[in-house]
């Protein structure tokens, strides 16, 4: 059984159809990347999957339960879905350590000592433990994103969503973050990542989902999709993003 199964997901904003019937499966331990041109609905899809945006219709089966149905405790579902944002979204009044422990203490109800131990263990994994007392404003973009990843991972989520995790970073910082996410991929962390970055996509995915105008056009491994696909739209898209790099 898939960890997440999306059936015919539709999202309309006023009269504009952003998602036009998405079908997608993500299994435990699997890592998928969603790519496509700007405005194709990638980020909307990710936000619909944990109901940050309410879908218009369709089903989202998470751990066997349709979370779009009324009566589902969406907060519990969200605790089980880590979310990493393009612009880091760290709580800027809290230190690195407190950013990580806040959810552990207030949502997981861990004792402070236990939460701090967990936070330090996770920060160590991304080489950020020495920055534990710093505030977000004192960190580089790459460091902020590593903390954001740790904040999500510390909650031990069933799946990690990443929304363009490298697009706000310069190439050097972007590589730092790709290395961290690649490590998660090698550790078989279940991930669904939206990105424009073919380098990131190649190194963190089992397969790539290509979206165009609100629908899934193709799903395949990076090599076939990047260099050898029969659909001209896909060839054109990947030629442009790979050339751009």
């Amino acid at each position, binding site marked *: 059984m898939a960890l997440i199964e999306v059936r015919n997901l539709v999202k309309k904003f006023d009269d504009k159809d952003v998602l036009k019937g998405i079908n997608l499966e993500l299994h435990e331990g699997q890592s998928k990347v969603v790519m496509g041109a700007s405005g194709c609905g990638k980020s909307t899809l990710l936000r619909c999957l944990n109901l*940050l945006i309410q879908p218009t219709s369709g089903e989202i089966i998470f751990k066997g339960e349709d979370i779009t149905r009324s009566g589902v405790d969406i907060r519990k579902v969200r605790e089980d879905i880590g*979310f990493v944002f393009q612009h880091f979204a760290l709580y800027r009044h809290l230190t690195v350590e407190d950013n990580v422990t806040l959810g552990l203490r207030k*949502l997981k109800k861990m004792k402070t000592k236990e939460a701090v131990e967990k936070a330090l263990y996770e920060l160590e994994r991304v080489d950020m433990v020495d920055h534990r007392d710093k505030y977000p*404003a*004192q960190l580089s973009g790459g460091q902020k994103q590593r903390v*954001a990843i740790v*904040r999500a991972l510390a909650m031990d989520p069933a799946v990690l969503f990443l929304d363009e995790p490298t697009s706000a970073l310069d190439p050097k910082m972007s590589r730092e973050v790709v290395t961290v996410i690649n490590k998660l991929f090698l550790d078989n962390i279940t991930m669904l990542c939206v990105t424009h970055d073919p380098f990131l996509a190649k190194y963190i995915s089992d397969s790539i989902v290509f979206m165009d105008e609100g629908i899934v056009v193709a799903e395949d491994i990076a090599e076939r999709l990047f260099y050898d696909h029969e659909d001209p739209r896909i060839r054109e898209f990947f030629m442009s993003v790979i050339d751009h790099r």
Partner: protein
Amino acid sequence: MAAFLNDLIAYWPQILAGLKNTALLMVIMSATGFFGGIAAFYLSLSKSRAARTWTERYISFFIGTPLLVHLFLMYYGLPELGIHLSAFTVSVIGFTLNVSAYNARYLMTAYHGLEKTELEAARAQGFTHTEIFRFIILPQAIRLSVPSLTNQIIQNLKDTSVAFLIQYHDFFAQMQEIASTNFQFFKAYMTAGGVYLALVSIIVLAARKLERHISLPGFQT
């Protein structure tokens, strides 16, 4: 001048009592106004449209009408309806409603300056609306509003003199009594002004210390 100083010494117990009353009213209204402001700020962000609308009406009313009108309405107007309140009670209620409205507006202004992605991140983590307010919005909004909130405390101190007009025996009421006894109005009011200035200076020093104490990297207040 010597006669005026003698009067000051002679009236010292009353002046001291007036100063105590002024300080008491300022401390109470600053505290109740602070928490009232937080309550109104919370309701301004409520999911309920009715709560948001009524809170906005409350804030607009109290910011848009003079404090003296509220005090007179309660002290001189309510007795016509059979409700009699002491000058102190009217002052506390009137000032609290007024100061809370201003504080709520300062906090709302700070809220508009927050990074909304942080709030989205908190929702994505599983925090409730109230938890997001408590752990993310309020600590940041208060930090960003510290200059406005401390200026409001200074304003509160100065505004206590208005309570004199509803028979509250504050410091200014005592100085007025000295002035009308010895007819040395200029000296009495200059002395009153000097005392208010000294008290305001103490608050300003404390406020700057507080600002330094709670300042964080990345927070320009």
